[in-house]
């Protein structure tokens, strides 16, 4: 006596579709949340601690991220800059050895961008540094973070509120930020 599964499966099809859609939706939501919502902490290739460098040893943000002063992109320091200090400072720690490995292989460290603006946004770091804005206003208290997490929500409202508060000349014009 054979029992066919087909009628049951047919009956279950709508349910399966709903569950499937919900599952895909949840996955998408999780990804969206992870990518765009503040508090994201990407895993970096080296456990670099801003708490030690910027907090404990009071190294100025612009010492390493020196491009923020002169270009649109703040940039990450070259391996050269890391090695410049760490040849002498604690060169034997395992994490520093990793840096040295990159240095010897002449490869850049594949840092993961924490605050990644969309490509259609024109955000010149140099203008904002020149205006006397503290890095912490957008990036949060980086000097207290062992692992840097995204603090500013990547939203248009953030730019507009700040431009409004600081009464930036033509700061609310679309072409100020959109490119």
């Amino acid at each position, binding site marked *: 006596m054979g029992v066919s599964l087909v009628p049951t499966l047919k009956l279950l099809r709508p349910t399966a579709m709903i569950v499937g859609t919900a599952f895909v939706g949840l996955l998408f939501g999780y990804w969206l949340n992870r990518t765009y919502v503040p508090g994201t902490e990407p895993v970096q290739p080296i456990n670099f601690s801003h708490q030690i460098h910027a907090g404990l040893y009071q190294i100025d943000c612009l010492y390493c991220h020196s491009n923020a002063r002169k270009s649109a992109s703040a940039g990450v320091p070259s391996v050269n800059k890391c090695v410049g200090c760490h040849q002498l400072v604690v060169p034997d720690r395992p994490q520093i050895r990793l840096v040295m490995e990159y240095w010897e292989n002449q490869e850049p460290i594949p840092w993961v961008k924490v605050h990644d603006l969309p*490509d*259609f946004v*024109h955000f010149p770091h140099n*203008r904002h540094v020149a205006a006397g804005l503290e890095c912490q206003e957008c990036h949060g208290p980086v000097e207290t973070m062992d692992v840097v997490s995204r603090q500013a929500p990547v939203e248009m409202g953030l730019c507009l509120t700040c431009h409004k508060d600081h009464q930036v000349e*033509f700061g609310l*014009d*679309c*072409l100020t930020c*959109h*490119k």
Partner: protein
Amino acid sequence: MSFIDDFLASWREYREPGYYDGFDYHWTMSVDLDRCTGCGACITACQAENNIPIVGEDAIARGREMQWIRIEKYWEGEFPDVKLRFIPMLCQHCDAAPCETVCPVSATYHNQDGLNAQVYNRCIGTRSCAVYCPYEVRYFNYNNHHWDAPLEQQLNPDVSVREKGVMEKCSFCIQRIRQAKDVAKDEGRRVQDGDVQPACVQTCPTEALVFGDQNDPDSRVSQTMNDERAYHVLEELNTAPSVVYLRKVETDAV
């Protein structure tokens, strides 16, 4: 009815020719048709500067061409007394632009520098602006475009790559204007004449195109605007364009 009155009053003020002269800059271009040889270098320069896709033969056959500046070609007279005329046509950045009034989402608007701005993120692709534009200089992205390797390496990072379903058009190389303003701000001065050159102006071998600030009376462009050959294309439509054309001089007519 006061709401409508207010609306009309502000509307009238905004459409008034010369309203944009009150601001710092009023970017203007002049095109000397006596100098234009129709070589098309401006088209190529624009294509490279502004990440304009090469849409391909099929798309062009279907009227989906994409070039922010184009050279229009006109034949005049009958053979053998035939003359070939060129007129470079780009977004005229009209002060009273018909395209701006029809956009349902305000994706295109006039900014304080006299630029007709297009915000790609806002555009929902109704294409009404292209219908209303009397100069037909707005181009619609019917497809997502891709650049074959290694061409994607030459994309300009200061200009967004437009997606399927948005309208695009000449921006007077807003990225260069922005850059010049940044430099001027750092040095604590106004943008001087010659600081900004859109890609087409920079590349024009005969210097037929001149770009500058109309509010600065000493700029090259304001001087060419006062030339007696100066005219606007489709002036009768009262769009108050920011692009001035200089009539070709007929040497054999004298």
